[in-house]
């Protein structure tokens, strides 16, 4: 991301908030901001960045929004009885000059709106990236490997759903705040994950998504410096992203944590993540993102794989399991127990998962079982489980990894 892109993206939510505060019409305002951003990318490189970039974007966006509102109101008048409709002047009564909200930052309000519970996760992600992240539809479509018109439809439908849900541009009521905040953090986590798990084929786009997710969480943290889970999520992202240079081989093959070249890990990012989570754990209410970040920190601070403090990781998974009943957590817990105590004990942790409906289709149970069987010396069983998992994953790099593990056990 160039400094120029960054400047525009940082302005995107501020400009949108200013327009929505003034005119309402979140859906059209969002459209207008995209066009203002586009105008800036076309004009600024030649004409230079204006002294007040935000003011410039607000002015251009506001003019565009006025046009959109006029044509929207003309369209409605054609469609409906003119007598029932407000005159276009009522929509656009205000002049095109809008006050810059200055110190006021409505990014959170905007995030709550984009992560509205009426939307599917896919729509929440797309709308967040566009309205808050300032990405273009083309960029989002490329990151998710769908055609641009598909992504454009998803975004307009998301905006329509918000409108139909009757949501206004206000912070959610206090009683809903925690739950809605959970949805916002989850969407940011999903954006990060989408970028992080992508392998070499889409590396260009994926690095962008992790960077974008980290940038957005940093923005939220600035607004909520005392929220432990925001800090925890940021720490988790940093501590995970720090390993990125080591997690794939030259050909895009996945390198398991234990075999990664730790000298490639990003030390500065680890230091930042670790200090964030340590601080959050010492002074805020405990939450699952903080615990996951703490687990990542234990991995990241081990000089070598053999130095990993597995007992501490087991203890952290015990805490995490009490917070969330998630079979994926249990799977990781089993691996930690196997490493700290022994493979038999790890396999025992897996047992209740056999009958867990949420995992029946999941190749990860088989992959973990294979790993623990291999550790215990049951090579034939391990090979069978690796093959079983390899046939069930929908990820090409995972299939290749699992198949190669099976091949080595012949």
């Amino acid at each position, binding site marked *: 991301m160039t400094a120029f892109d960054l400047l525009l993206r940082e302005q995107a939510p501020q400009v949108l908030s200013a327009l929505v505060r003034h005119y309402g019409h979140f859906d059209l305002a969002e459209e207008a901001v995209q066009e203002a951003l586009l105008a800036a990318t076309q004009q600024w490189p030649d004409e230079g960045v204006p002294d007040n970039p935000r003011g410039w974007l607000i002015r251009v966006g506001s003019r565009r929004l006025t046009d959109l509102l006029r044509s929207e109101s003309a369209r409605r008048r054609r469609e409906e009885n003119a007598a029932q409709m407000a005159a276009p002047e009522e929509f656009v009564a205000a002049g095109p000059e809008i006050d810059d909200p200055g110190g006021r930052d409505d990014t959170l309000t905007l995030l709550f709106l984009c992560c509205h519970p009426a939307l599917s996760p*896919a729509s929440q992600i797309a709308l967040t990236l566009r309205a808050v992240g300032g990405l273009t539809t083309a960029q989002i479509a490329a990151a998710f490997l769908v*055609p641009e018109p*598909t992504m*454009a439809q998803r975004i307009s439908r998301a905006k329509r759903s918000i409108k139909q849900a009757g949501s206004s541009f206000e912070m959610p009521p206090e009683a809903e705040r925690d739950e809605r905040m959970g949805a916002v953090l989850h969407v940011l986590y999903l954006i990060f994950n989408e970028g992080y798990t992508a392998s070499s084929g889409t590396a260009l786009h994926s690095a962008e998504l992790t960077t974008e997710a980290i940038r957005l969480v940093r923005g939220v943290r600035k607004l909520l410096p005392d929220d432990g889970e925001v800090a925890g999520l940021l720490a988790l992202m940093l501590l995970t992203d720090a390993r990125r240079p080591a997690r794939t081989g030259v050909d895009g093959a996945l390198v398991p*944590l234990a075999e990664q070249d730790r000298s490639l890990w990003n030390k500065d990012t680890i230091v930042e993540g670790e200090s964030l989570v340590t601080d959050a754990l010492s002074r805020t209410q405990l939450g699952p993102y903080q615990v996951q970040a703490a687990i990542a920190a234990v991995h990241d601070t081990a000089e070598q794989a053999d130095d990993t403090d597995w007992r501490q990781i087991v203890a952290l998974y015990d805490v995490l399991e009490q917070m969330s009943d998630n079979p994926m957590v249990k799977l990781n817990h089993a691996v930690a127990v196997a490493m700290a105590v022994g493979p038999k004990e790890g396999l025992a942790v897996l047992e209740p998962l056999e009958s867990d409906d949420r995992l029946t289709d999941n190749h990860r149970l088989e992959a973990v079982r294979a790993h623990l069987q291999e550790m215990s010396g049951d090579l034939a069983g391990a090979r069978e489980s690796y093959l079983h998992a390899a046939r069930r994953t*929908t*990820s090409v*790099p995972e299939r290749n*990894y699992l198949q190669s593990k099976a091949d080595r056990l012949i």
Partner: protein
Amino acid sequence: MVPVKYMLLIYSNPESWASLSAEQREGLSRAHESLTRELSEQGLLVSAAGLADPITSRTVSVRDDTTTTTDGPYAEAKEHLAGFYLVECDNIDQAIGYAARMPDAKYVAVEVRPVMDASGLEM
């Protein structure tokens, strides 16, 4: 999880197609039109197409660097692939729901298969 791509593979056979009444054929077109419109409006449709009769197929094989082309499908199967939808869904149940709305599922069957992707977690 974020959406996953599913391929909905529509199977047909010559008998089932020939046995349809004009009304049923029209119903089939209407059902696909409306499903395509809905999926497209929701921003879930990646691609969709109907395929020409397998009689128009060419099957290509390369052995010892020699390319051979034969007329017709690879295997003399009773059922053939008649079309497909590539859609993004939150989970396989949503994809199954769309497949079940195709009249083809009533006549022969629609197969729902996850599409592989390049994302993966180190284990």
